[in-house]
């Protein structure tokens, strides 16, 4: 399923030389599944674009991983899924072009981790960012890997353990996760401008390479620790509750 075609859950458009990929599954609050991951990977790897902006259609960035997909028959299947999502984050960090997150509405779980992986993030003041995985008996290893570099370890620990304590866009800006706040109707344009500016910076490539040097450490945890947890009964029970209501 290619990006931009009906069913992939991701809309792709151009603003000048900047590619804008928008997660578009409003009925699932832009929760991500394998099709979304693959479409985003394609968008981020598009060599014809000088920069890439990732956003969410409708009122949300992404409410997380679609729990409907957490239907793993065994740990090996869970591991394959985790490897795929980690692959997306690695691609975002290693892409030789700026990748900017435009966060409006909810950025939870996967959405939060995607914002962490991007080079830069802009948001609306009312955006909501958090890590609710623990509520479902899961954990956010990619956020644990990358988050402390952005927010500091203590704050990541609090967000990951509380699960339901979420940052507003204003707080995310105060803590340096988000570098600019914009109203909803100007958010995408601001993200595109920022991405284009970063692309034209002569030091961009080497600076981004430096930023991504420790991606292995940051994203190496998930495939090691997640499969057993995802295949656990607690996560299955939570998934069943979610599916019902």
């Amino acid at each position: 399923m290619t990006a931009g075609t009906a069913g992939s859950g991701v809309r792709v458009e151009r603003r000048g030389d900047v590619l804008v990929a928008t997660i578009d599954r409003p009925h699932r609050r832009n929760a991500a599944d394998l099709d979304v991951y693959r479409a985003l990977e394609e968008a981020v790897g598009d060599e014809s674009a000088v920069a890439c902006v990732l956003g969410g259609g409708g009122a949300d960035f992404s409410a997380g991983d679609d729990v409907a997909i957490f239907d793993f028959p065994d740990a090996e299947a869970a591991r394959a899924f985790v490897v795929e999502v980690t692959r997306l984050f690695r691609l975002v960090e290693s892409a030789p072009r700026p990748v900017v997150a435009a966060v409006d509405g909810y950025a939870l779980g996967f959405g939060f981790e995607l914002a962490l992986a991007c080079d830069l993030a802009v948001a609306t003041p009312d955006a909501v960012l958090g890590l609710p995985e623990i509520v479902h008996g899961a954990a956010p290893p990619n956020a644990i890997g990358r988050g402390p570099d952005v927010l500091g370890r203590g704050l990541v620990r609090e967000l990951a353990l509380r699960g339901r304590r979420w940052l507003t866009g204003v707080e995310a800006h105060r803590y340096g996760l988000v570098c600019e706040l914009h109203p909803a109707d100007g958010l995408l344009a601001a993200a595109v401008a920022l991405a284009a500016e970063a692309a034209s910076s002569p030091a961009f490539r080497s600076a981004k390479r430096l930023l991504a040097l420790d991606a292995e450490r940051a994203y190496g945890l998930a495939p090691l620790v997640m499969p057993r947890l995802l295949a656990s009964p607690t996560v299955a029970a939570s998934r069943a509750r979610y599916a019902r209501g």
Partner: protein
Amino acid sequence: MAELAARPPWPEGPLVVDLDRLADVSLDDLEALERRGAVSVGAVSGRCEGPALAAALAVDLLVAAPGAALGRPGEWANVVVRRGAGIAGRKVAAYLALTERLVAAEQARTWGIVSRVADDPLAAAAALADEIGSRSPRAVRTILRQAHRGAAADYAQARLTGARLPG
């Protein structure tokens, strides 16, 4: 009494670095600034870019005037990425290193880059340097060494990626 300097070589003892007058430095100079055993306080009133921005990230503490603004690293982007991340997190460091945006003093204070906002940064920096200079030298030296532990690796990495050569 704290000494005032606008260029290397850096004197020993409590130091105020006048970032408005700092024209150029080498990576070795910045590393030397971070290796000192006494406190360094940067003072900036206006635009803090290029080498001054890199030096602003190397000093221990930073005092800025309300109208000061930090950004535009130029050749110093790689140093800004590494040393900036340890002060304000990766995203803020990327914002400073990858764009030409300027961060105003108060926002820089919220982000932990600026320690104090003062109308007379040089005077405030001198007062701060003197206050810390009157503390136990051993305690100060120990605190500085621990806080700057990552500097050598960061400057080595910046040299390897070649954006700015020493000397």
